[in-house]
């Protein structure tokens, strides 16, 4: 069953096309990352699915059905910002959430414990720090233990400890069989917790599918010698790498993950009469991969 399927969805704000006919589907039990730079349409997409924005074209289904209010009651959602009544406490706010959802009233203490807010549960929301507000929003999404969760930038405003806690929480929820749809501009975050991913850029869907298929891993070997042109010629005779680039006095060789043998490269060059003065293996940086995917 698809938890969410989006069909040719588009959204225009006047002349600006925020979404340009996007289609994908979220399988049950997956942790589905929606990845893209700021302004790529992630929140717009989730806003339409959550019925707060009107689509300009196309449609979507929830649980393989035409979307209705009851569907949203079954989904725990944090969209963009923590939205609460400033003058009410955490408990009073969650009482309202529970009353609207029609479930979870007896679950308030548990979720406050999960997001570490028990100590401050009776303080007004307006006195919370940004991180506490974000944690309360995550707590509200967890209310009533829903099977589907939607998190838009869940680690926004959290400190490193908070980020680690939320990521392990998401993993734990996923292990319990829950479906999690998560929007993020942090590739690292998506890569660490997601099983599936859709990549958006300026309203276009660049790629979608299994994380391991989308992020093909590569290792890069960087080398240099006194005579860089001679090194370049010699390396043309060598086998095994997929791509070669040259810049600023170094040459980069790209290998499929785990297939680099530095000693073999070194002895190959030595046998050809070349002594290397630089040989270094580096993991491809996530940022460069992100740029590659979104450019």
């Amino acid at each position, binding site marked *: 069953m698809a938890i969410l399927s989006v069909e040719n969805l588009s959204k225009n704000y006047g002349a600006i096309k925020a979404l340009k006919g996007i289609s994908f589907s979220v399988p049950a039990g997956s942790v589905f990352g929606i990845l893209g730079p700021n302004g790529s349409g992630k929140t717009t997409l989730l*806003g339409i699915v*959550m*019925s*707060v*924005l*009107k689509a300009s074209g196309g449609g979507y289904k929830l649980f393989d059905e035409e979307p209705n*209010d*009851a569907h*949203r*009651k079954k989904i725990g*959602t944090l*969209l963009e*910002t923590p*939205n*609460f*009544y*400033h*003058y*009410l406490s955490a408990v*009073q706010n969650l*009482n*309202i*959430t529970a*009353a*609207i*959802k*029609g479930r979870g009233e007896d679950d308030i203490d548990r979720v406050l414990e999960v997001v570490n807010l028990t100590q401050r549960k009776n303080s007004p929301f307006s006195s919370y720090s940004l991180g506490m507000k974000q944690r309360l929003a995550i707590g509200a999404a967890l209310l009533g233990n829903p099977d589907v969760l939607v998190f838009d930038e869940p680690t926004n405003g959290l400190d490193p400890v908070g980020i680690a806690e939320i990521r392990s929480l998401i993993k734990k929820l996923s292990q319990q069989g829950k479906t999690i749809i998560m929007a993020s501009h942090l590739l690292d975050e998506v890569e660490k917790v997601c099983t599936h991913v859709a990549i958006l850029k300026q309203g276009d869907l660049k790629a979608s599918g299994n994380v391991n298929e989308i992020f093909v891993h590569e290792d890069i070997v960087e080398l240099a010698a006194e005579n860089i042109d001679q090194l370049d010629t010699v390396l043309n005779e060598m086998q095994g790498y997929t791509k070669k680039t040259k810049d600023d006095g170094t040459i980069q060789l790209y290998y499929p993950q785990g297939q680099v043998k530095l000693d073999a490269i070194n002895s190959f060059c030595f046998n050809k009469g070349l002594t290397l003065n630089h040989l270094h293996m580096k993991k491809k940086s996530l940022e460069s991969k992100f740029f590659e995917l979104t450019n």
Partner: protein
Amino acid sequence: MRSLLKIEWLKIKHYGAFKILSIFFIVGVVLTNYIVFSVNKNIIGNINTAGLVSSFNPYSFSNTWQTTSYATGFLLILPALLIIILITNEFSFRTSRQNIIDGWSRQEFIEVKMAMALIISVLCTLLVLITASVFALFSGTDFSLNGFDHVGYFFLKSFSYNMVAVLVSVLIRRTGFAIGLYFIYLGAENIISQLLDVWSMKLRSDHGIDLGSMGDYLPMNASDGLLTFPDNPLKSMAKSALPTDYYWVVIGFVIIYLFFFIWFSRRRFMKSDL
């Protein structure tokens, strides 16, 4: 609807501005009526003894319904202010979004706000009822429901003020701007209304055409126009120059405007992005 209203109550019962404005309104109603009561007793009463005008008590039974409704009408800006604050809060806290995300339909959201506006109007009307009765009890006159229709007019005025507040809030969304626009509109309409009234008087005196006070046909002045101070000897002297009060026409306008406010607020909220 009952469960929706319960949730609205959860939202406001701990809200300071709600408590303060409610207390202001209740105290204000009692004070305003007391001022009218005491001015009449001490000043007009003194003129009476000089024998210039005949005896008149605005808070005697039958007069009390009209006087209290009229005097209290000036305070209806307070509940309207409360409604603007409550609705625009939802936009600035973005809870209007969150309520929908959590499972309300847009229709439920806007309808419960309108239901709140209606309930507040009913409560204000009840307050008028109690105040009118209590002041009249001191007049020593016999209980009478004559002129009770003015309490109904008060309800229409209160509901109109509150529904304009709902409309302005849904259109403007920002608390300060919404309150500002509400007052500016109220002021602007009053000026236009006065001009129309002068024109109505001229039409009547110069051409013998009596279309009623046309200033009363504007959205907010319609319900204002229904409420007047009871006829008294001083007022009667001026009355001959004024156009006829076509009550039913004005009531018709009030109801048409109310339907428009409801329809437009609902449509606006249902169709726009949150």
